[in-house]
């Protein structure tokens, strides 16, 4: 049964990423150069809506809380995020959109995914020495969320609303097109 869900949800996610234009390197780069914030508005409102529905669903008992899975906070999150940000800006793709782009038959996406496989292999070999540096030791209490810190689903509902508000207030253009 879980494989049926994997196929349905994976197909839906790939479809949505493509239809939203997150797979379009032009849209990613235009967002990162602050010239066209369409995608930022879409992503922020998406996160906001998801948070809102999730925490309303949890409050009403419509969503099984054991389905949640949060990631731990450790030092590696910062350099890891920086490396991902640089790679994202160079290529205009991230791991998810690179994969969805394979379905469109893009050669640059295939090259990106091969680069990703090489990167994953390099990390798999580097893991032990990075771990010895303490990069993956939990800090700030590890898997903490704002909702658990404040012990209230309202934190998630309000945060979701704030994301949607920010998305609608964010101007489409911050810097002028050259």
């Amino acid at each position, binding site marked *: 049964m879980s494989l049926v869900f994997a196929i349905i949800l994976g197909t839906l996610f790939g479809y949505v990423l493509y239809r939203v234009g997150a797979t379009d390197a032009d849209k990613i780069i235009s967002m990162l150069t602050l010239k066209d914030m369409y995608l930022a508005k879409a992503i922020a409102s998406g996160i906001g809506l998801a948070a809102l529905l999730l925490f309303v669903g949890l409050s009403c008992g419509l969503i099984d809380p054991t389905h949640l899975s949060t990631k731990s906070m450790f030092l590696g999150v910062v350099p890891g*995020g920086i490396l991902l940000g640089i790679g994202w800006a160079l290529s205009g793709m991230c791991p998810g959109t690179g994969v969805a782009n394979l379905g469109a038959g893009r050669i640059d996406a295939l090259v990106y995914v091969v680069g990703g496989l090489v*990167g994953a292999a390099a990390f798999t070999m580097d893991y032990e020495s990075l771990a010895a540096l303490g990069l993956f030791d939990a800090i700030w209490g590890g*898997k903490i969320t704002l909702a658990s810190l404040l012990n209230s689903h309202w934190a998630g509902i309000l945060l979701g609303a704030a994301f949607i508000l920010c998305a609608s207030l964010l101007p489409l253009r911050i810097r002028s097109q050259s």
Partner: protein
Amino acid sequence: MQWNWKKSGLALGLTFVLAIVLVKPIGVSTQFVIVDGIIASLFNDSLVYPSSESPSGYGSDNAYLNKSGGKYAAAIANPLNYGLMFVASMIVGGFIASRQLRRQDADPPRLPLVHRQRFGNDTLKRYLLSFVGGFLCVYGARMAGGCTSGHMMSGMMQTSVSGFVFAASAFAAAVPTAIWLYDRGAKKS
């Protein structure tokens, strides 16, 4: 036709919630490790092996594949698992959407417009940037414990502190990099 930001946000939001309602939060970058492991175990029979001491039933001599009770080792030994099937199906979703858009609009350009404005029709440079970008994205995602999907979208929607730190780090690096690389000399257009 291109969706507006509201419709796009609605589609993204519903997809991420639906995944949690039915199974668990969406994530992608782990599967790059699993695919590597499946390829590597074709050449190395002993990369992952059944282990009665490990909670997942599998172990590996590689510390990364062996971590968290050998769950990566187990996924490599059993490729028909949720995470890998999810990511493989994303290719199908991308295929359907690209076909649909291709009927409506013209063919998407082979090179991104920003690339042509900056580097002309240098296809090789595009592939070089794509390869280095893929390498850095997945290496970084694994170091951080997740990528744009798992950390940024799934993480922040759960109000996870690590998701906010990850998003801030990624944008703090991505914005100057993109401006530095694609904005110089782009006035040619």
